[in-house]
């Protein structure tokens, strides 16, 4: 299991979700993706994406200047 840090600060939709999907393509089940973004839409978008792809939305934190979104990869076929 590894942690992948994705910095999408300064990008607006679809920047953060694009970065998330590109990281996800390289990830394996069990990996953690930590996405940081200052576009407020990144939180609901990531949540919706996790629901639709059966990955785990671990949570999000408001860090004042940006949001830190944590996702566990679980949806990939074995």
């Amino acid at each position: 299991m590894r942690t992948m840090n994705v910095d999408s600060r300064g990008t607006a939709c679809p920047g953060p979700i694009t970065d998330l999907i590109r990281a996800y393509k390289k990830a394996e089940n069990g990996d953690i993706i930590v996405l940081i973004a200052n576009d407020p839409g990144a939180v609901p978008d990531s949540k919706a994406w996790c629901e639709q792809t059966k990955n785990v939305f671990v949570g999000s934190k408001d860090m004042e200047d940006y949001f830190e979104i944590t996702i566990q990869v679980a949806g990939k076929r074995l």
Partner: protein
Amino acid sequence: MKKIAIIGNGVGGLITSSKLAKDLAKEIKSGEVSIMLFDKKTEQEFQPGNLDVAFRGTDPSKMRRPVEKLVYDGVKIIHDNCEKVDLPNRYLKTEGNDEKIDFDYIIISTGSSPDYDQIPGLRDANMDFHTNAYTSSLIYQKILKIKSGRIVVGIGGLPYKCPPSPNESAFMLDEHFRKAGIRDKVEITYITPFTRIYSADSINEVIEPIYKARSIESITAFNTDSVDATKKEITSLEGETIKYDYLFLTPPHKPADFLKNSGFSDEDGWVKTDKRNLHITDYDYGFAIGDTTNIPISKAGVEAHLEGIVVANNIISEIQGTGKRYKFTGRTQCSMETGFHKATFVVGTYDTPVQKIPPSTFNYMEKKVMEKIYWESLHGQYEWLFKYHFKKDYFED
């Protein structure tokens, strides 16, 4: 003498070289400035026109022009591809050539191209309307033979250039089969890795009702992993499968190969570029524009155009000592044809979210005007029109 090297003779490279050559004509004539444009390609293509070639049968030769005819006087064309750029030492090398070519300024505008290796099986199965006018022309002949079945269109992977084009392909296929009177025999399914039909919510609100009205099915959050051309089946990273009879996916794209491990690119090879001043990392004499950058905006010709003008203005200002500095606002303006002579536009900047613009015939006509003036604009003409249209987004000082 100040040597300006431009790598890539696509939209960005041509517009930037024309702007530089036009405004530095006196300096070029006196031998104070030289402009070199590197690229093996001898023809330039109007890529948005590939949609019309593939889905309406437009003559592909109308979408191409020889580069020689588009280059402004004073620009030296070098028909070689770049193999290496050494930014700290200010030299480059072309393919298979050991000679070091010095530069004072460099602009990397090498674009992006399909990366079929990312998705096994896609190359053989796909009808790629997106990449080449002549291939698009062959696809039109195949479309004419389709009488029934399931068509799958959409986004094959990220990133890709021309964000609206997968949606446009769905709308144009719908139009084609309606006009042919066989729409009820053809199923059209749109797939996307995003959670909406169009990634930006405002545009999604515009086009989602059109998908419903035209009976175009959509499958969101579908991350294409592989394609089996024999079984005619697409499989997602999550293991879901979709059957198709005809496949029209927009492939993921990659930057020029020499950029990977260049020292100034990210792990995939996209050039690390400041989104405002367009400097490559910390080099104030190195610039990147267009698809080749890692700037998180659309990979589209309009970006290459507007970024090229900003970069050219800053180089001109430095050479002429005016002290002015210009910045890119992140302006995008991508047309999206919704079929039956209507279009919307995806318009936004770094600081203003994408607007909701209803489809109209007027928008479609604006798109067609751009097609008419495209070739002259590469040659530095119609600058007054772009200044008027984009206002402060043309460049910000």
